[in-house]
């Protein structure tokens, strides 16, 4: 158990590819931090630098207060769960779990006891004597988790650990990882592509873009107050509607725009705050043709083409709407749901 502290961390690969440009991040003891961002933004690179698998070009990484820049992976006392699990194929499940303990000279009784404990927690006791190739994907995932927890490391590092599982199993394992991490209270960094995983697992969510941190915060804070257009577009599914403010000025109810801070060039509205009936308070009225309806069970996603502003607006409507494609629809953008952004900087205003 430990804190993790990144200060001005940069990474330039030997070929000259600059993957991470100055990341500052403090992770508290026992916290689970999730890194999200588009492909190639440097999430894995950052994680591998913490693990000691990549050298740190600039800046410092500290684990439990000790700078670990020059330490070997083994000396950092962390555990990593790889996307492909990286189980040793020629060893039994037990062998896989024991390997790290044996290398550290843990006494035999201690090893047996810890392996039994980890196997019990992860419910892999019946498979202890099997080889990894004799296990299903989900079971392998559990073994990979087991290999991380037997060592009782200072921190867990996860690099897209669930991306090879099917949707249902991914959901189960997500809950299990969360439960396990809470019970053990081990500081964790978790890299993922999956929105849902990011939102549900994270104590704090870190959105990365092109080697930089865009925003850090509680998942719901990032959802409610995205700090930039990038975060607004990245967090939330379907993504936020973005309108150029000038296109909205001539519409009925445009007075609602007056309270926005000076310099606002773009107004964002989440699909689930768009109203299908005139609500209380100021709102802008739009009209368009329904191009597509996606029923997703409890809610429906509507894609509406608005000729007036020449844009397709996404709306999340609760329940079954009774609407049909190609029909006309009136809807309102309530002032309370406006997210103001500056056009040049892409930053949120107020």
């Amino acid at each position, binding site marked *: 158990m430990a804190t993790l502290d990144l200060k001005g961390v940069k990474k330039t690969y030997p070929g000259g590819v600059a993957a991470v440009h100055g990341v500052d991040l403090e992770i508290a003891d026992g916290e689970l931090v999730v890194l999200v961002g588009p492909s190639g933004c440097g999430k894995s690179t950052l994680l591998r630098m913490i693990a000691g698998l990549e050298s740190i070009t600039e800046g410092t990484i500290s684990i439990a207060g000790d700078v670990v820049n020059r330490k070997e992976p083994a000396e950092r006392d962390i555990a990593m769960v*790889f996307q492909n699990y*990286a189980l040793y194929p*020629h060893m039994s499940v037990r062998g896989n779990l024991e390997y790290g303990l044996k290398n550290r000279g843990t006494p035999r009784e201690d090893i047996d006891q810890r392996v039994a404990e980890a196997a019990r927690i992860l419910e892999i006791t019946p498979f202890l004597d099997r080889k990894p190739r004799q296990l299903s994907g989900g079971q392998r995932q559990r073994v990979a988790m087991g290999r991380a927890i037997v060592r009782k490391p200072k921190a867990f590092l996860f690099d897209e650990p669930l991306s090879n599982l099917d949707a249902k199993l991914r959901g189960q394992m997500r809950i299990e990882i969360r439960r396990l991490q809470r019970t053990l209270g081990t500081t964790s960094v978790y890299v993922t592509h999956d929105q849902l995983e990011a939102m549900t697992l994270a104590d704090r969510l870190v959105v990365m873009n092109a080697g930089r941190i865009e925003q850090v915060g509680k998942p719901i804070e990032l959802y409610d107050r995205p700090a930039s257009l990038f975060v607004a577009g990245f967090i939330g599914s379907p993504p936020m509607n973005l309108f150029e403010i000038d296109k909205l000025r001539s519409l009925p109810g445009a007075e609602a725009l007056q309270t926005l801070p000076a310099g606002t060039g773009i107004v964002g509205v989440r699909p689930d705050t768009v109203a299908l009936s005139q609500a209380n308070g100021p709102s802008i009225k739009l009209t368009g043709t329904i191009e597509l309806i996606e029923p997703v069970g409890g809610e429906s996603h509507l894609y509406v083409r608005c000729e007036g502003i020449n844009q397709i607006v996404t709306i999340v409507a609760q329940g079954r709407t009774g609407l049909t494609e190609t029909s006309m629809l009136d809807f309102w953008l309530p002032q309370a749901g406006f997210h103001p952004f500056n056009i040049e900087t892409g930053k949120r205003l107020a």
Partner: protein
Amino acid sequence: MQTKRTIFPNKLLPYLLLTPQLAITIIFFLWPAGQALKSSFEREDPFGFKTTFVWFHNYARLFSDPEYLNSVWRTAIFAVSVTAISMSVSLLLAVAVNRLLRSGKFYTTLLVWPYAVAPVVAGILWWFMFNPTIGILPYLLDQFGINWNHRINGSQAMILVVIAAAWKQISYNFLFFVAGLQSVPQSLTEAAAIDGAGPFKRFWTIVFPLLSPTTFFLMIVNINYAMFDTFGTIDATTQGGPAGATNTLVYKVYADGFLGLNIGSSSAQSVMLMLIVIALTVIQFRWVERRVQY
């Protein structure tokens, strides 16, 4: 395992396609092997006019010949040394190169060149370098107080042929080892590094076991190479001498048959050689392969 089957509409076509390979096997392997088997039971008079069927006479003489038993022992030493040296050197090279390959800046092809050199040329090359009168290596060894003369010293002659034969095989082994190393996922060594294993431990507990199918395959190839394929190398370096110190089974077949003109004994020896190699291969597949699986 999935097997892919092609259905030929014409029953004859598959056989037709196999014919060239079959022809080569029959002309260059089965037929000579049959001839050898036949003449191993015969005795030919010195002028080659008359052959008589002598049952196992040739074999009986062979096994009571101390020179032959000696040759078996020498061949064992030779084959084991060649295999061990060529495999360990090529593994070492492959591991070194594998690191460079991961960073993508090495010309692997350079190390394949020795393999393109004919055995005789390789033999002559080493003969030249170790030549007691004009070679460079005896001169260098002399500086360290080692008197090199493989024409007189049997052990030195053996060392020479082992080096020459092993050198020839290194590039072949190297290629397979590099390919094998490349197929070990990097995340496994990374996981092991995080699990607290140093570079040596990682190699011996993770990489080497995963390489065992390659190692096993190469072991069979190398032993067979050393026993069968080193005739050219030995002929060009020591000609089996001095005093038979490098007279391995395969060389002895040639020496007794073509130089000594004892066709019967030579045939019996080649039949024995075939049996030995078949037996070795069967043993290896039976017992070693089982431990290679993971």
